[in-house]
């Protein structure tokens, strides 16, 4: 039996994001649509729709035409969501710009993305964005015509209700969003997503979670990442579930307060966020009884964390999503009716209308069930391509439409999938393949260990060797030799980390993913110093 599975048959709707929000407001006119707690914003779906149309009109008043690009460079806020849907109604492409970007990265994005207007804040507690923009524009040619500061007269003028909106014929296959891949693996590439891509992924995600207009989704993840702006906002609009933004950036206390005070029924996060919440001083005093479901995604989910979220955080129907920016993003997802054991041991089954197969990385042959291979996806969720990079697109999407994820997985006979690692993270030590995910999962079984990250570093003898970075539970201390001994006694000797470092935190991208390449660099530096 081969590692090929297809999700359930389902209607792929040819809707634009504008159609979707119109439909939502029509079905749930007085339903709570958008809450931005740190801004004091509370809107019904009708009010939200009105703001979306005004934003679209405002963009048209700037002379923007279908196919033109705008960037939004901001932490979470109501305006981000207006721009997401407003741009879509005007046929303008939204480019998500990582709020953590500084001048070096911003220069690159401004140059390659060809955005005409950048929507941003002048400054906040993290940075002076105006200054960063000025630095990034020095000595470079780009198509930027202007920057509009959110929460300024310039922004207010854009939302003038007197500005007319000119409805347009927009095709569901048109690109609506460009998202740059995360910084965990290398040079960012702009994945172009169509209305069809993101509307249908949002719909399928909402259906798997059984979201309805009675649900309230607490979204602490950044909107600039597809976790926030597809799994979050689009799944919400597709179902009528309320969008609750607890804060501008991830704030554990604000998230716990939002869950309780908004009676959230769903909570999203990367594993690091859930770990922070579970260990926060306010955790014990928070009422989680309203929670039913949610999504844990973005990086491999430790089994022990998942079990605590189900029990201690009262999220019995937490789901696991797997995917990538290039697939809108979710291609594999568990269902709320799956057992805890299933949700702990797999990332679920293919999404509707989506095919998944695992292939041998050298030959391209489909692997037998139970054997590891590279996960490939095909269907309506696969991106249009990489912006301005047909070569990279060709390397990623085969002529017959299979997108190669670069992730390794094993398929079970029931079509469910377990992610076993990322091909690029694989360590080759003395000719043996070692998968960091496996070593990390083992290290997490140590009672003192809160979190574990494993990387490979160059080694003159082995080619590469294994290094672990551990975060210990509060109040715990440990010795390197203690951890090595624990490994030696329980796993194959070639997987035992040559070195163990204890750290307080990991270098993370703005979306919460661990930057393994930085850990690798740190390990090499420490060894050189030693």
């Amino acid at each position: 039996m081969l590692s090929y599975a297809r999700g359930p048959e389902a209607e792929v709707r040819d809707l634009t994001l504008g159609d979707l929000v119109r439909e939502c407001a029509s079905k749930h006119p007085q339903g709570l649509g958008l809450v931005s707690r740190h801004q004091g914003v509370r809107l019904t779906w009708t009010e939200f729709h009105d703001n979306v149309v005004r934003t679209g009109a405002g963009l048209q008043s700037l002379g923007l035409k279908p196919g033109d690009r705008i960037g939004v460079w901001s932490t979470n806020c109501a305006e981000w969501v207006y721009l997401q849907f407003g741009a879509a109604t005007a046929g303008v492409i939204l480019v998500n710009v990582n709020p953590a970007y500084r001048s070096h990265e911003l220069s690159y994005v401004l140059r390659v993305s060809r955005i005409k207007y950048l929507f941003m804040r002048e400054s906040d507690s993290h940075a002076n964005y105006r200054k960063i923009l000025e630095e990034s524009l020095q000595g470079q040619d780009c198509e930027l015509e202007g920057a509009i500061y959110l929460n300024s007269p310039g922004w207010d003028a854009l939302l003038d209700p007197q500005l007319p909106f000119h409805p347009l014929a927009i095709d569901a296959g048109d690109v609506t969003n460009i998202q740059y891949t995360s910084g965990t693996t290398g040079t960012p590439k702009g994945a172009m997503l169509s209305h069809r891509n993101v509307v249908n992924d949002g719909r399928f995600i909402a259906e798997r979670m059984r979201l309805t207009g009675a649900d309230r989704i607490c979204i602490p993840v950044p909107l600039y990442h597809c976790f926030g702006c597809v799994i979050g906002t689009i799944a919400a609009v597709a179902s009528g579930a309320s969008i609750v933004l607890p804060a501008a950036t991830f704030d554990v206390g604000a998230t716990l307060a939002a869950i309780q005070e908004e009676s959230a029924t769903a909570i999203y996060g990367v594993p690091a966020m859930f770990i922070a919440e579970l260990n926060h001083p306010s955790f014990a005093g928070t009422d989680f009884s309203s929670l039913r479901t949610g999504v844990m995604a973005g990086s491999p989910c430790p089994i022990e964390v998942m079990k605590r979220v189900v029990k201690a955080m009262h999220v019995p129907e937490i789901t696991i999503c797997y995917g990538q920016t290039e697939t809108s993003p979710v291609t594999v997802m568990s269902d709320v009716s799956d057992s805890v054991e299933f949700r702990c041991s797999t990332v679920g089954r293919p999404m509707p209308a989506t095919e998944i197969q695992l292939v041998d990385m050298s030959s391209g042959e489909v692997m037998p069930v139970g054997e590891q291979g590279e996960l490939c996806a095909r269907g309506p969720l696969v991106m249009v391509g990489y912006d301005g990079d047909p070569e990279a697109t060709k390397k990623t999407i085969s002529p017959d439409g299979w997108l190669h994820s670069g992730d390794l997985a094993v398929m079970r006979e029931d079509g469910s999938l377990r992610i076993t690692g990322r091909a690029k993270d694989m360590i080759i030590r003395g000719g043996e393949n070692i998968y960091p995910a496996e070593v990390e999962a083992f290290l997490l079984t140590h009672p003192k260990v809160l979190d574990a990250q494993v990387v490979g570093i160059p080694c003159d003898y082995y080619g590469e060797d294994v290094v672990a970075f551990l975060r210990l539970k509060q109040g715990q201390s440990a010795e390197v030799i203690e951890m090595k001994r624990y490994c030696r006694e329980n796993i194959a000797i070639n997987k035992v980390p040559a070195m163990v470092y204890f750290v307080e935190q990991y270098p993370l991208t703005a979306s919460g993913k661990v930057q393994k390449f930085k850990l690798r660099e740190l390990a090499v530096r420490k060894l050189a110093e030693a």
Partner: protein
Amino acid sequence: MDRAQIEKTLREIIMKRLPALKPELVTPEVELVKLGVDSLAFSWILADVEETFGFVMQGADIMNLKTLASAVDYVQKQIGATQTRA
């Protein structure tokens, strides 16, 4: 621990991990790889060195275990450093 004791202990470690090896072949200057110490055996030898002598080896230190003589030098230096820190 003096040099002679270190050498004796290291010999015992090597013989434990390569029981089929004839002891007389383990001379101070012979390269351990030529004695059949493969990468797996090396991993075990490193582990034993750490546990026996009580210091943590850095990955790059593997190159110090090329021969028995260089291994003795290395361990003597590490023990000396450990005692100094204590």
